[in-house]
């Protein structure tokens, strides 16, 4: 990781799928190496659009998105893929590959069209399989795996790319709580290795416990960005999610002690059940 910089910088970025409705409006945000930035916000806030802009799938209609020293759109795809690994929300492959084949695809950006895998490629694949606990599943076809295992395989594929930055798009969608925790801990480990990590999630509470910075989006605009306890206030969250929310400090004793946790309240007059006794 001796690259001079693998930070993202969004400067006054707007993007509109149509002229009158902007999906992202005037967003300025920096994502720095060694930090985990979580993009949170209600459905339709523009989180996925920001991700697509970070990856160059979309080109901003105004403003600029740079990665390292260049505009994202100026990066050749292969060169960018050597720098940025992506864990997609979901994938619907037409044909099931084995876990090892999927993880090996992480080496594609490092290989020429006809070049064979070398020792260092195989080593990177083995490391990624080991770190994601997939060694015993390596020859299983993907469609025989549970949702959590499939997601681990996609994470391992991104790790095999040995990139300087990671983008995780709702990586915990549909996973049970143990897999969720494990995935966030993996993301933390990647940061500790110096990587820039950007994560989109609906799990505001997990983001508050694991992310260095939280960027709260609403209706295409960036409402606040910074350390979780500064961004996630009861008033702001209640406004953004349009629901009464209070904030409690996380009771755990670890690194996340005191992290702000959103607790949505029952609305007055809502249908109720007999109270717990």
């Amino acid at each position, binding site marked *: 990781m001796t690259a001079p910089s693998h930070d993202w910088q969004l400067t006054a970025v707007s993007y509109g799928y149509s002229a009158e409705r902007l999906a992202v409006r005037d967003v300025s945000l920096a994502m720095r190496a060694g930090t985990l930035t979580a993009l949170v916000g209600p459905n339709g806030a523009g989180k996925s659009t920001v991700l697509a802009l970070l*990856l160059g*799938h979309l080109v901003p209609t105004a403003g600029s998105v740079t990665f390292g020293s260049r505009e994202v759109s100026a990066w050749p*795809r*292969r*060169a*960018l*893929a*050597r720098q*940025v*690994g*992506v864990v*997609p929300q979901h*994938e*619907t*492959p*037409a*044909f*099931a*590959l*084995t876990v090892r*084949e999927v993880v090996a*695809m*992480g080496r*594609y*950006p490092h*290989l020429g*069209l*006809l070049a064979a895998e070398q020792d260092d490629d195989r080593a990177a694949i083995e490391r990624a399989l080991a770190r994601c606990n997939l060694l015993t599943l390596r020859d299983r*076809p993907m469609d*025989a795996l549970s949702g959590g295992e499939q997601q681990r395989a996609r994470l391992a594929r991104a790790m095999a*790319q040995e990139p300087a930055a990671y983008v995780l798009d709702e990586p915990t969608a549909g996973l049970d709580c143990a897999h969720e925790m494990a995935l966030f801990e993996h993301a933390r480990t990647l940061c500790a290795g110096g990587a820039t990590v950007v994560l989109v999630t609906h799990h505001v509470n997990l983001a508050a416990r694991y992310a260095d910075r939280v960027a709260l989006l609403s209706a295409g605009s960036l409402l606040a960005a910074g350390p979780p306890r500064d961004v996630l206030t009861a008033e702001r969250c209640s406004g953004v999610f349009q629901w009464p929310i209070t904030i409690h400090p996380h009771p755990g004793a670890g690194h996340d002690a005191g992290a702000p946790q959103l607790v949505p309240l029952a609305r007055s007059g809502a249908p109720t059940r007999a109270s717990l006794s």
Partner: protein
Amino acid sequence: MIVGVRVGAVGMTTMDVLAALAGRGDATSRTIIVGLRLPRVAQAALAGAALALSGATLQALFRNPLADPYTLGVSSGASVGAVAAITLGLAQRSVYAVPACALAGALLTVAVVLRLAAMAGRTFDTKVLLLAGVIVGTFCHALVMLVLSFSDVESFRSAIFWMMGSHAGAGWTSVTALGLTLVVGGAAVVAMARPLNALALGERTASSLGVNVRVATWTAIVASASLAAASVAASGVIAFVGLVAPHLVRLRCGNDYRTLLPFSALAGATLMVVADTTARVAFAPSELPIGVVTALIGVPLFLHLLLRRGARA
């Protein structure tokens, strides 16, 4: 292949074949072997390989196990070209007329399909491409029927015969043309094995793995269309091989395109030679349409493998 060369309406022994290949033996055997059977077997093998490669490539591109050279409307386009050549009498003037018109028809169809998808603003949306392919294919089929309804009896027979698909017309000229296309197109798709693996997962994923989706998609489309068109131009419309050969390999060897493509080519060639040989000898001296044989051999085999895999899983 040796068996394919040996077996035929006129009885031959393996020794006759080897003798003819070595340039000895009696003149009649030599003519039958070198002039008729060898090019026919060669053409069947090459066409089978080309269709299988084309089918495997299109399956990745469309992310659809049912995609094959016919999905893009290639065969229908080629039929229009060939039937037009036959009924307009061009076929009598030059032996190259039918293959040339078929090839032109196939490539024109692909161009129209891509243009339609581009006009819908979704060039790389595989659903739009698939739909455009089906629609253009149907339109071409209607054109063929229209042309045929105005043609004389002799042209009609000849066109129908071509549309059923056959390797009977094989000669060294068509074999050479098909072989050259197979070498170029086959090299192109084999070199694309990794991008195809990535594309099979989706365009966004492919892009995040460093694949230039635009370039890869175009290369795959042009290569697979040329392979299918060359095969159709040489031997007419033979359905099923392009769909089934890759699937047979998928069931055996998995879905990694680096192994899938070469083995699909082999499977396609084998399937086609077996089918053609069967078509020639089953009711010799009269011949069956090869499409009937490919379906009769292939469908039960495919179902068997599919059901066995289902039982294991």
